């Protein structure tokens, strides 16, 4: 058990943040994806002058508008929670988080808020090209907003570009470019944005398929499917490519999470990748944590080694090796060793605090010079500061079943979506979608499946990082504010009600607008 933690408070605070983030994420990927597809549709309209593409753009823009409007400000609640429920964490991350979020706010406000108005109010009031530019700027603005949020999240997965200041107790950014081009941030941004494009594409394919099923506006929706299939197919391959890159980075900077998502316990070369698997208890344990085995498994021989190192001879450490050793394997520092280093760093900080409290300037200056100003101490010990809070090595293992299933749900649905986009494009090019009713039904069902995949990706990213709120530096239990658990439970319930109401409002307004369909009369105004 992690030392000195109020499990109830920590768990409720986590549940509250997870609930808010998941509901927020219902709105975001559709905004990212649909904004791009709309911009492409409008570009075709401006290029060809074909009114059908204008009607198409307006129809999808309506659905974009509903989603965009109902999603607005749901992310602000996450920022409230940082200040109220995660105050130690918020203080500790310092300007690392503040700078990207401030830039995000400026982009979001000036680009999205300004040009969204032109998108919706400006059809007959500004030139075609200015309107098109506004639509593109909304899309670019939305995706750039995502960049800064994901840079902040990337830092939580792999903290770089900062130095810890014991006087302010904050991490101070010393290298903006290292934070921006952090491999975890780049992977996260590209993977997330492309998955948003894919989700937007599947949304358009699914809704368009419903119109074809109802035999309404077939030409318009065939063209919608064609455009979104191209965007979807390109995006799906980019999602796979960036997912691969993300996994490679994870194997280096978060090897425990990487091993957990594959339920990979014992290190080996020529390690197999699990394509599909069902886990069961093995009866063995790593300390108090159950080792899971496969009740059913379809594996790809040697592919986990290829995924991480490019060849089958790459050694892939398992959870057992990472947590308990063996330390003879080059490059692995087992958790128990990191705990020693973390405890040492924690004791240095405690001594520093004692010096500050008794106003012992000599001791404070000495510790500052010998330790916090010493690169070796920062790289070899303080880097593992968070491990000082672990009670035993197995505390560093996240929930393996949750990590494994969320990863595999994401990947399996991702593979299915590649096939969907290929088929969709194939049928759209042959103008034969209506002849394949099964495909129409699958397209419609694919909409919730794509959301599920997107959510599963975030569950892996966040739950797989446990017990850390900042990888290796701070466990979740130390980031939480020591407030009354009852108030956290109360706000959890309020959010659950508020967000569910919002979701119901979104779905009902959207369904009504979908049923109304594109209205030719609107264009004559």
């Amino acid at each position, binding site marked *: 058990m992690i*030392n*000195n933690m109020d499990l109830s408070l920590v768990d409720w605070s986590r549940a509250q943040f997870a609930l808010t983030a998941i509901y927020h994420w219902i709105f975001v990927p559709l905004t990212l994806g649909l904004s791009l597809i709309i911009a492409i549709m409008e570009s075709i309209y401006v290029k060809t002058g074909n009114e059908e593409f204008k009607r198409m753009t307006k129809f999808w823009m*309506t659905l974009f*508008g*509903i989603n965009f*409007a*109902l999603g*607005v*400000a749901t992310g*602000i*609640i996450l920022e*409230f*929670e940082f*200040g*109220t429920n995660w*105050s*130690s964490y*918020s*203080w*500790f991350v310092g300007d690392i988080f503040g700078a990207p979020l401030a830039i995000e706010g400026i982009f979001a406000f000036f680009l999205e808020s300004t040009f969204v*108005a032109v998108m*919706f*109010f*400006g059809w007959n*009031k500004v030139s075609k090209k200015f309107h098109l530019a506004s639509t593109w700027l909304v899309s670019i603005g939305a995706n750039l907003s995502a960049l800064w949020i994901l840079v902040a999240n990337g830092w939580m997965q792999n903290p770089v570009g900062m130095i810890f200041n*014991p*006087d*302010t*107790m*904050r991490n101070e950014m010393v290298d903006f470019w290292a934070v921006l081009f952090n491999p975890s941030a780049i992977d996260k941004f590209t993977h997330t944005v492309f998955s948003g494009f894919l989700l937007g594409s599947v949304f358009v394919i699914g809704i368009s398929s419903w119109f074809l099923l109802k035999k309404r506006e077939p030409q318009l929706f065939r063209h919608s499917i064609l455009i979104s299939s191209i965007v979807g197919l390109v995006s799906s391959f980019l999602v796979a490519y960036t997912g691969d890159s993300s996994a490679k980075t994870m194997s280096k900077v978060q090897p425990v999470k990487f091993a957990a998502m594959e339920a990979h316990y014992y290190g080996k070369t020529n390690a197999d990748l699990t394509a599909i698997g069902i886990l069961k208890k093995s009866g063995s344990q790593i300390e108090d944590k159950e080792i899971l085995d496969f009740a059913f498994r379809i594996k790809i021989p040697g592919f986990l080694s290829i995924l991480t190192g490019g060849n089958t001879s790459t050694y892939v450490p398992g959870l057992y090796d990472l947590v308990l050793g063996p330390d003879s394997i080059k490059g692995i520092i087992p958790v128990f060793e990191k*705990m*020693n280093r973390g*405890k*040492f760093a*924690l*004791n240095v*900080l*405690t001594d520093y*605090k004692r010096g*500050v409290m008794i106003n012992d300037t000599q001791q404070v200056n000495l510790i500052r010079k010998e330790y916090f100003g010493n690169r070796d101490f920062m790289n070899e010990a303080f880097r593992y500061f968070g491990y*000082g*809070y672990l*009670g035993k090595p197995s505390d560093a293992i996240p929930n393996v079943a949750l990590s494994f299933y969320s990863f595999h749900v994401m990947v399996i649905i991702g593979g299915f979506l590649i096939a969907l986009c290929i088929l969709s494009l194939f049928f759209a090019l042959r103008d034969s979608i209506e002849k394949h009713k099964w495909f129409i039904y699958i397209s419609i069902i694919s909409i919730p499946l794509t959301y599920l995949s997107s959510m599963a990706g975030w569950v892996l990213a966040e739950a797989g990082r446990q017990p850390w709120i900042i990888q290796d530096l701070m466990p979740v239990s*130390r980031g939480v*504010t*020591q*407030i009354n658990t009852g*108030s956290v439970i*109360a*706000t959890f319930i*309020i959010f659950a009600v*508020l967000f569910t109401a*919002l979701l119901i*409002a979104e779905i009902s*307004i959207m369904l*009504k*607008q979908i049923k109304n369909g594109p209205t030719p009369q609107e264009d004559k105004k």
Partner: protein
Amino acid sequence: MTGIAPIAKKVFRFYIEGFRDMSSWGKKVWIIILVKLFIIFLILRLFLFHDFLKSNFDNDNQRSEYVLEQLTKTPPKHD
């Protein structure tokens, strides 16, 4: 200044006409946005979500001391 006033007037009219001619779904969505913003900023922010460090401490020194205390209280013994 003579150039800015007409532009500001045009922008103002652009928004006024935009809201006036808004479709029924747009009006519904705006009502939801306003209710949501009211709940978020006037209920959640004012009554439930105080910035813990800002509202409990007067300056950054006190805040950093508090966080230092939180991070170092009952530290485990160095092996």
